[in-house]
């Protein structure tokens, strides 16, 4: 994950809400079930991974980390991520007000510590 000591709570939220599109994890039980969904996801996974891949986090320089963290904060603050079209099918990925605050607080702290 982001760093070694990421709180379990934050890690779980990010894994549930972001990993399907922003990690190398391709173990989707639902992936092949519905064809239009599969096409949609394939496109979004390849695209999302180019933008941000949590599995490559350790390889990003501090400058790159800072940029990505800033971008993560904006995307969550603006309600743009996780993509709404995804949370339509994956209700559990939707960020509640609580979860959103938990992630934002932690990501902001991490960013300030860089």
């Amino acid at each position, binding site marked *: 994950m982001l760093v070694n000591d990421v709180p379990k709570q934050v890690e779980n939220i990010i894994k549930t809400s972001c990993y399907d599109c922003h990690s190398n994890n391709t173990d989707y039980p639902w992936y092949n079930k519905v064809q239009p969904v599969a096409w949609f996801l394939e496109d979004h996974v390849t695209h999302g991974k180019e933008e941000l891949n949590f599995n490559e986090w350790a390889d990003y320089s501090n400058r*790159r980390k800072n940029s990505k963290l*800033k971008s993560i904060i*904006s995307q969550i603050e603006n309600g743009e991520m996780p993509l709404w079209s995804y949370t339509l099918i994956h209700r559990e990925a939707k960020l509640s007000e609580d979860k959103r605050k938990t992630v934002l607080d932690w990501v902001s702290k991490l960013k300030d510590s860089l």
Partner: protein
Amino acid sequence: MRKSNVTTGILAMAIITLSATSCKDKKKVQENQEGHQTEQMEDSGHMDGAMEDHSQMDHDNMNHGEMAMMSSEVIADYLTLKNALVSDDKDGAAKAGEKLEGSLKNFDTSKFSDEQQDELKDIIEDATEHAEHIAKSDIGHQREHFKTLSKDVVDMVAITGTENTLYEQYCPMYDNNKGGAWLSMNEEIKNPYFGDKMLTCGKVQREIN
């Protein structure tokens, strides 16, 4: 078991065929692009001039003027982008972002020290991503990337210096009061984060020569 092997085999063949086709296509496109590029180079006299200067440069000792020249195109495109954001001009900003991608790509770091090269490459990689996003986003998102981009350009100027005096300016209200900085050639404040909404938010923090 058997069936899935067959399926995999068919899939693999399909993929091979596909990639063979796309390779050919790519080659054609590349050739076209090269032809195109040569043309462009020929009729742009100023580019030739810049290239000549370049090769005459002494490999190990660059003086200040030469170092500043290396970043001048990046800074010029950055300032065009900044001015477009000041004018709330999304299309102008997108165009400037695209141009900036090009000048970042042309930035030749080879004459700098190893340590400087490492940092410059890191800056260029980061700035390129911001420029790409600015080239294809709405103005709110352009401004988000402009904030991080501005940090990259400030750090770049710290290494290369600048041919013209620049002013680092800062408005504490942007980004939910987390603030945003930018560079300008004019001392007078014109805010690229708010544009017309709050044109004069900010103050000069530093003069860079």
